[in-house]
């Protein structure tokens, strides 16, 4: 069973600010889901391959070229609500 402390740790990893009420509620929901998915342990999967994709694609390569056909750098930067400075998004200092 996940404890409140563990739930808070996961929220930290996910950079998700949760209220005390949310921590309590999600703890219940997460434990419910994790308990439910225990059913997977019924199956012996020794030696079974992992499925990461379903249509048999292997590495898909392309030329490393900039493609401006869809939109420009300026248009992309404009989707940010933060200030844009010298073609970069300005944020508060991180370190």
């Amino acid at each position, binding site marked *: 069973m*996940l404890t409140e402390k563990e*739930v808070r740790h*996961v*929220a930290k*990893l*996910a*950079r*998700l*600010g*949760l*209220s005390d009420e*949310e921590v309590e509620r*999600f703890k219940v*929901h*997460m434990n*419910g*889901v*994790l308990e*439910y*998915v225990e*059913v*997977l*342990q*019924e*199956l012996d*999967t020794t030696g*079974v*391959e*992992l*499925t*990461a*994709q*379903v*249509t048999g*694609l292997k590495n*898909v390569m*392309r030329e490393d070229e900039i493609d401006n056909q*869809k*939109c*420009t750098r300026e*248009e*992309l930067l*404009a*989707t*940010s*609500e*933060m200030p844009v400075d010298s073609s970069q*998004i300005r*944020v*508060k*200092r*991180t370190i």
Partner: protein
Amino acid sequence: MSLNKLNIRDINSGLVEKKFSATEVLEDCLAVIKSKDKELNSFVLVTEEEARVQAKVVDDKIAGGEKIGALEGVPAGLKDIFNTKGIQTTCCSKFLKGFKPPYNATVVERLNSAGMVMVGKLNMDEFACGGSTEHSCFGVTKNPHDLERVAGGSSGGSAAALASDMCVYSMGTDTGGSVRQPASFCGVYGMKPTYGRVSRSGVTAMASSWDVVGPFTRTVEDMAYVMNVIAGKDKYDSTTLDVEVPDYLGFLGGDVKGLKVGLPKEYFGEGVDDETCEVVKKAASKLEAMGAEIINVSLSKTKYAVAVYYVTMPAELSANLERFDGIRYGVPTSQEYSDTVDYYYKTRGEGFGDEIKRRIMIGTYVLSAGYYDAYYKKGQQVRTLIIEDFDNAFKKVDVLLTPVSPFPAFKVGELADNPLAMYMADALTIPASAAGLPAMSCPFGTSKNGLPIGVQIIAPHWQEGRIMNVAKALESF
């Protein structure tokens, strides 16, 4: 005359023969939206003016004696998850309020090139997470057959708007059943194509190894017309494959003589309404009467599919939704913050709704150090076993026929406090998604209280045409 009720072919011939104009078809759709959508809440944005311009372009072309294609001048609605250049696209999250994408999704580009008249953006569960469109920042979409009930989800707006003739076709996305289940609840056709058949470029990702784009239509023939335009490889989506796209109109003969139809017993078990089972069995009898062979099969790993989904989907989702950080995308926090990490906490905590937070938390947990093997790896292995189940079944049968949802549309709020019960509602649509198989929901019956019930046809990879042929055989029930 209600031009908005016409199918694509009749609209096309009416336009070509100048019986009516594209503008008139559009105005009939807009009139229904105005009179009915206050109570249904299927549209989150009606792009009336843009649509009128698009319709006029088509009318001018016809007046100028130019030829038009099948979808030209046909009004459509798009789930609010498709990027539409310069037009607000929110995924029904308050986090993306005001977001205007700088480019169109590939599917939107293709439909535009084919002459789509886009009437607006449709309601959905936030970031496509949910099975009832109750998790939308714009409020719930009601079911046109019973306003006390949900339209399904996550593409609930797409199904409800089409079922009410507010557009002639609509687009949605399906990760674990988000096209098929609302189609079944609202009584329209909903196709989940083969994984990699339709481009997802410009469509906000939820769970990348599951997500597909799919249309809603009112007839099988309309489905063929729309699939003809949207299917095929796209250089902007490296998961699309260079597999030949047939002309789907060539699959509408409805000849099922000798076709082997499998009924997997696990899809008719506990938790599935008797009425729903009866409707599917009636569909099987009809196919049998038309010369198909009905074969009982077993897909023994079916019961594990929901668990596989609720491990791997949140994992992929939590990674995909990292981009909503208030820097690249998203509305910044209104609170004071000390540094960038604090900014992330506050912005994401305020921006995301309940169900998104829940899934990000589960996904982050199952991917975290020490738990990866027990959950994510195990889930991906069991997914392989589910795929093998289908491979074996398709050695014996050509298609599978199953229910779509274990029950018809439920009441608004009925499952709201019970996330796990809501997840179980996808138990019969998730398996085909796990294997990337094409599957379509086809309206086939009604419950005793008048709610639509759909049947699901599942086929091997790339066999959307085969599904349409079977659907055509069932269409005139």
